[in-house]
């Protein structure tokens, strides 16, 4: 077992883990953060996307020990309890989901994309979501939701500074 200490959704945690524990397993099974889901066995689908030290990663393809000393944000830490992040709001308003399985990962990746490029073109949204697969929506409304979120965020400056720091 190896000791790890990290900040998850703003809270300091310390645990003993087997080195082979995947970050996604640690989040779900040890911390109960079941908002982050597993959609594939090949690291292709992006459903497990979280932020590690401010950048999006596929948490099925990172070891928990690699995150030691770092900061993780999951879909559950994106906004304060009872509130929605503008990207969550936009996905709801623009029907950016059907079954919702890909949604936590889509939203975390969309937030990363908007952090880097606050007003992306449609093409840039599609490229930014290249590592996230959705088997329901056909992507059209997801892209629309992300572009709408970018407008919401521009009109509400300064937003996002706290939630994803």
């Amino acid at each position, binding site marked *: 077992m190896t000791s790890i200490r990290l900040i998850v959704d703003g809270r300091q945690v310390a645990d003993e883990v087997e080195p082979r524990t995947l970050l996604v397993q640690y989040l779900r099974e040890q911390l109960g953060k079941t908002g982050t889901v597993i959609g594939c066995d090949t690291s292709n689908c992006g459903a497990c*996307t979280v932020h590690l030290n401010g950048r999006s*990663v596929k948490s099925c*393809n*990172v070891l928990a020990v690699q995150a030691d000393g770092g900061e993780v944000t999951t879909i559950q830490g994106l906004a304060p309890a009872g509130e929605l992040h503008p990207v969550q709001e936009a996905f709801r308003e623009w029907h950016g989901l059907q079954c919702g399985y890909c949604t936590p990962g889509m939203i975390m990746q969309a937030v990363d994309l908007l952090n880097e490029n606050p007003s992306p073109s449609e093409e840039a949204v599609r490229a930014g979501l290249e590592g996230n697969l959705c088997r329901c929506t056909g992507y059209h409304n997801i892209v629309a939701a992300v572009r709408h979120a970018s407008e919401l965020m521009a009109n509400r400056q300064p937003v996002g500074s706290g939630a994803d720091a």
Partner: protein
Amino acid sequence: MIPAAFDYVAPTTLDEALASLSAHRDDVKILAGGQSLLPVLRMRLNEPGLLIDLGRIESLRGIRDDGDALVIGAMTTHHDVSASALVQEHALLISEAMTHLADPQVRHRGTFGGALSHADPAGDLCAPALALGATFVIASAGGSRTVDAGSFFTGLFETAIGEDEILAEVRIPKHTDWGARYEKFVQIAYQWSIVGVAATVQVEGGLFAAARVGLTNMGIVPLRAEATESSLVGQPATAETIAAAAALAADGTNPPSDLNGDADYRRHLARVLTGRALRAASGVA
């Protein structure tokens, strides 16, 4: 799927990493970004007893200007390489290849040195490194040695890195003001190259002064399209010159046949993509 159990160390210096490596050499794997290794461990295609994580060795990260070359630390992420103005200016071919590599999440974790050490025949960085004449600085407890790109890739997923060695950095000779393009043909649901072509050219006074063309997935190691390169040099930078040169792109290659395409199909792709890459790299319509 979960990997088989292993021990884990995360040294903070290259010397410590090399010492652990030589102490455990038969049963150890180096962990860089983990974007190729962790899927392999999860499928249990490999069950090392120890992982040595290079992620905490700061000296292996970063890009610096070293006179006539750029030096890219092995642990520099794909994201940082693609965001680098130095790379854009002096090794545009690498920046070009990065725009087609994997997805943003994988680019945040995967490393330049990891991708080259992995030496996947469908990997997108090997052919550009070969085309640019990169040299590889490989460290061991005894010191370090330099291997040129022509001798670095030795086989399928095999390189010149010995079992007690670590790739520390990669030197890329500057190709300032060279045009460049990476053309990649993929199966749509999947980002890996069926064939990729990495072309970089220097055009002076309307003539091709120099040209380098690397091929991805046209053999078990990355290859140079040498006949194409030599037919360009000294010729006018026109669509006709490029068409004639591109027709030679598959000469001397030995592409695989698999579910994504047979060898003949790959030879065809190599010729078509070489034409596209050369036109874009040289600005010829």
